[in-house]
């Protein structure tokens, strides 16, 4: 019986994923991306449709970490969920096939789902020297992406490399590694930066597209507002320490052991848009940089990640008051000793001169009569 005819929940049940697991994952995913809780029912309904949306997943200059972060989940449910929601028609890492068969699969998927498939790009695209630094099946990454993107219904760039160039684009960027939006000018590209991208951000985006047929609200860089509108600093669990002025000065010091704020060790949280502080990685609580005691290095931001030294501090983009309070009558600073000195000397001279002069004059007059 074709897959599409079987109810999604039954299918998952068959794989050992209970209804409860399903609801749990969907609820969390929905909440994380701001979709309503009632989505679960609609999701099941959508998944029961005859045709699952086709997804073509391209790899370029990448480490495959984004795919791994998707797969390395504590619960198999998430991976399965994603893979069952969609029809993954091309994925070099997960494919059993290789070589010509893989290329054929790509071409036929493109033909059958023309204008409707979701293109997911993982990895940067080199543009220098005609793009020869990444070739798959004899074609440059540049050619492949322009070809496949040309007929895609939606484009998602997962990870910092695909979003803006990522690690391959670090100075001096010898290959001209570039993000997908820059290569695919004029097209709407949903970018999910991160190194790796948080899999829940991907899930939320796909959920919305599959269930509602729309893409989430994007900011000027193509990042979904549901995950990238706020900076790490504003949702950081160590924020109370920042507000109270409790900082780690050196790795391993007493403050570090107590989990104090890592700002002074170079945390880029105040400038980095991401939701790592809210949803940790690998579904392990605390599995994110600050959670394990290392400052955030701004992996989602083009201007910061792989560019600004790890332990260099950044400006606070939106400073707010600290945890301390001024007293009713604050001390407003004192007197300049230099000015006091000068004024005293001049004043003293003036008064002294006046007294001396008039005394002299008085004495003079006393010694001889004044002219009339």
């Amino acid at each position: 019986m074709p897959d599409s005819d079987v109810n999604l929940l039954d299918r998952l049940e068959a794989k050992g994923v209970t209804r409860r697991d399903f609801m749990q994952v969907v609820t969390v995913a929905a909440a994380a991306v701001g979709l309503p809780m009632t989505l679960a029912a609609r999701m099941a309904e959508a998944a029961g449709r005859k045709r699952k949306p086709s997804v073509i997943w391209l790899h370029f200059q990448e480490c495959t970490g984004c795919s791994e972060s998707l797969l390395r989940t504590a619960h198999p449910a998430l991976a399965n969920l994603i893979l069952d929601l969609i029809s993954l028609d091309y994925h070099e890492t997960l494919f059993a096939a290789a070589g010509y068969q893989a290329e054929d699969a790509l071409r036929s998927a493109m033909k059958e789902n023309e204008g409707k498939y979701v293109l997911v790009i993982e990895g940067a695209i080199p543009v220098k020297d005609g793009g020869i630094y990444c070739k798959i099946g004899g074609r440059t990454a540049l050619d492949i992406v322009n070809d496949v993107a040309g007929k895609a219904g939606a484009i998602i760039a997962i990870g910092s490399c695909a979003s803006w160039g990522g690690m391959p684009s670090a100075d001096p960027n010898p290959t001209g590694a570039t993000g997908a939006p820059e290569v695919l000018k004029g097209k709407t590209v949903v970018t999910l930066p991160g190194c790796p991208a948080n899999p829940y951000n991907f899930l939320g985006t796909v959920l919305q597209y599959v269930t509602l047929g729309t893409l989430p609200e994007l900011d000027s860089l193509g990042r979904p507002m549901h995950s990238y509108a706020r900076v790490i600093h504003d949702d950081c669990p160590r924020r109370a320490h920042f507000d109270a002025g409790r900082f780690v000065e050196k790795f391993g010091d007493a403050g570090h052991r107590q989990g104090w704020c890592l700002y002074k060790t170079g945390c880029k949280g105040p400038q980095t848009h991401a939701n790592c502080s809210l949803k940790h990685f690998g579904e392990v609580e605390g599995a994110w940089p600050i959670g394990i005691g290392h400052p955030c290095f701004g992996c989602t931001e083009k201007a910061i990640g792989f560019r600004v030294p790890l332990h260099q501090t950044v400006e606070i983009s939106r400073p707010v008051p600290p945890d301390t309070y001024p007293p009713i009558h604050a001390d407003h600073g004192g007197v300049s000793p230099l000015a006091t000195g000068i004024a005293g000397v001049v004043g003293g001279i003036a008064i002294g001169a006046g007294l001396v002069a008039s005394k002299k004059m008085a004495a003079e007059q006393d010694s001889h009569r004044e002219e009339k």
Partner: protein
Amino acid sequence: MDRRSFLKGVAVAGAAGAASSAVPAAAREKATAPADAVGLLYDATLCIGCKTCVVKCREANGMVPQTKASGGLWDQQTDLDGDTRNVIKLFKDGERTSFMKAQCMHCVDPGCVGACMLGSLQKREYGIVTWKGDLCIGCRYCAVACQYNVPKFEWWSATPKVVKCELCSHRLAEGKQPACTEVCPRKAVIFGKHADLLAQAKARVAQSPGRYEPKVFGETDGGGTQVLYLSKKGVSFEDLGLPNVGDEPTPALAQTIQHGIYKGFIAPVALFAAAGFVTWRNRNKGEPGGGA
């Protein structure tokens, strides 16, 4: 000077005085809040010191966070100043503690308005005291006169302005509340018609006498203020930094005396007429043709 010229001088003075009495004298009546007066009620017993009002005030008024004192870490204010129109302070004396929201009191009869030479500071719509710069020379008499030390000055600027809370009159014009009252999570500071807020404040004190100091600050203080304060029982208003100004409005004394002296401008004109006349008279009394 002989009796004759003296009497003539007095006559001239009297005539001049009569002529100038055509100018009406301004009587010092008791000022009252306008009928549509709006204001704030700050209940210190409800405030939790979250400082959201401070952050929002900054944003609503386009003011830049002050991070220099903290080395770039925080927006840190120690008091109202040329960048800060609203600040949360903490009173602490052993067990007695209270937060205090400091900003312009929007007095019914303000000292700053009485002081300002060209009327840059005035009570405008809804009785809100606002500052307009086109006639301000930056003399800071308003800062000298205000009993609450509210008007602040942009000392660092080559083109300084006078800065203070103006009850977000630009937001009121759009039908919104002041920023601080809109965001307060405990409704510790609320906005409304002055008369309503005063009634509410008095009701709170009457209903919970064990909770509040038995007084609404601003009901009569300094002639009344449109920003009212309620304090925790055991914490006096002076503890919160609100001086004991009495019931007389700040400008009352100065204006009573000045009006007394200059009423109708009679005295100066009379003095001028007398002085000029006497001088002229004395000169003409000299030998004909003057000279040595």
